[in-house]
């Protein structure tokens, strides 16, 4: 079991029943060489998938009917990007895993999403803080991917950047409204920014060998976020805490619960088609 947990790459042979599979299947075959590109694409795919799952939790719970529709829209955009990225990741891996094998039959230690997206939704202010930071990262990321040498990533980036631009507009508007709305909304929005602020650090960690080095996105991210916070009359928090680990499969306690819900039905019927 320990050997399995410490395996850093994806499982070479996916088992339909996941963690409950019989003992022999728990011993993984020697991991196939895992390409850097696969890991990179999987990270972006998992960010989008987990973000979609969290946003979908808002469905029927929005503060206004129009906002319910908007959050579902953003969830659908993230889910759409996740599907394209997972499909591509599966092809890069070459082990025959499709989008569903990757989404439903990996355990939390095999997920590569950042911690930011798996944090619970909290109140509407926390959700908007998370979305602001995610979109402020995804807009320059997808824009850079749209011009990168990998044709598949370039096509996905070109489509997703337009959607992310809308997500950024939407989140920015709400952060301004809440920050500069009532006393209560200001207090909640500031608390949300304070809570979520440390998490984007992980997204911008330098990796010069990636198709897009995250460090090159920092300038855009900082300028967008600081201007929105200023307009929203919010204060930039002071902290040196920089939680990370998602890209290596070391997550918060929240992810396992999220995946339990996401995967429960699929895993209960090994081999079934839906």
């Amino acid at each position: 079991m320990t050997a399995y947990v410490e395996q850093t790459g994806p499982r070479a042979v996916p088992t339909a029943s996941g963690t409950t599979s019989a003992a022999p299947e728990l011993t993984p075959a020697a991991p196939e060489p895992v390409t850097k590109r696969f890991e990179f694409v999987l990270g972006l795919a998992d960010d989008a998938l987990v973000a979609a799952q969290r946003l979908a939790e808002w469905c029927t719970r929005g503060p206004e009917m129009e906002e319910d529709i908007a959050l579902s829209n953003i969830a659908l955009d993230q889910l759409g990007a996740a599907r394209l990225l997972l499909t591509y990741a599966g092809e890069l891996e070459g082990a025959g895993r499709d989008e569903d094998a990757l989404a439903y039959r990996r355990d939390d230690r095999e997920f590569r999403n950042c911690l930011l997206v798996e944090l619970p939704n909290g109140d509407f202010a926390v959700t908007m803080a998370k979305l602001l930071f995610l979109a402020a990262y995804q807009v320059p990321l997808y824009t850079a991917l749209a011009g990168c040498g990998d044709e598949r990533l370039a096509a996905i980036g070109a489509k997703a950047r337009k959607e992310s631009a809308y997500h950024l507009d939407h989140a920015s508007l709400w952060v301004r409204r809440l920050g500069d709305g009532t006393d209560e909304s200001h207090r909640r929005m500031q608390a949300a920014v304070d809570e979520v602020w440390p998490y984007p650090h992980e997204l911008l960690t330098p990796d010069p060998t990636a198709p897009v080095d995250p460090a090159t996105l920092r300038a855009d991210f900082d300028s967008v976020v600081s201007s929105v916070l200023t307009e929203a009359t919010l204060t930039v928090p002071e902290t040196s805490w920089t939680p990370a680990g998602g890209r290596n499969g070391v997550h918060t306690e929240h992810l396992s619960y999220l995946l339990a819900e996401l995967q429960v039905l699929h895993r209960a019927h090994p081999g079934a088609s839906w």
Partner: protein
Amino acid sequence: MYGNDFPADDTSSGLLGEVEAAEMALREAAERGRHGAAGADPAAYFTEVIAADQKVEPRDWMPESYRATLIRQIAQHAHSEIIGMQPEGNWITRAPSLKRKAILLAKVQDEAGHGLYLYAAAETLGVSRDELVDLLLAGRQKYSSIFNYPTLSWADMGTIGWLVDGAAIVNQVPLCRCSYGPYARAMIRICKEESFHQRQGYEILHTLAHGTPAQREMAQDSVNRWWYPSLAMFGPPDTDSTHSAQSMAWKIKRFSNDELRQRFVDMCVGQAEVLGLTLPDPALCWNDERGAYDFTQPDYAELMRVIKGAGPCNRQRMEHRRRSHREGAWVRSAAAAYAAKQASKKEQASRKERVA
């Protein structure tokens, strides 16, 4: 990236054809124009417009009871769309494939959209959405009783699409020809989307019914639970229906509850055969004389109990809506406060400009 990626089938094409015919009739009526004007006798003019199959429009004179009936009916329909998001919303996070998750999320989102068009149609009658939402939350206006049943398995996403949306379409297609223009126009758009919903539900059930034994069992169990509540969606039998006669005369309603229920049963029998699932009614059989299926009526006493609040999920559905509304209150206040601040800043700026 989501959506219409199923092969076409003809399960709802007949009804969709009726929606298209209604849309054409609406255009033709608009091109014909209405004869004359209200003049000195608006009540006579109202009767003429209805008799000529023209549309009554928001600024026209209309009997107060016509207005009240429409507000009640459109609001109830809007509330049903909004409450109806919950039983299906229950499975979004657990959908068994990413494609199904995307389709279900989009479907529930469509329902929110339908709620919005319908509240907008009701607003043309001089009532605000906020007032209607308050009436719902206070329990003073109803929504369709079907949403007070729980969604216990994934197969319920298929059955709701096939039977519940199917019954809704049979009910709603005639409303595309309703005498009140804004309602008729909203219904044309809604029916087109509903027919896609019905098709995707049918496709879910078809996949399950042809899947593993456990999936097949899930599908049959679901149809067993939803069949009679779906039949009850057409309301009480004609002998007990209180609003029908006047609504028929006003061309708000065009067929009786029992006529629509029969049409629905006749439509479902063949579809169930294709699915390979059994409708849970041993008495179901073709009647040559009537040219229709004989079937067991739903338990109308149960329908009345559910309408009065004693269904399995009435309390849960209402509490969910009240909680969402309550928890969103600070967000709505913030949006209003921000808008007021922006407006006053703009006004100050333009005043300065005028002074300068």
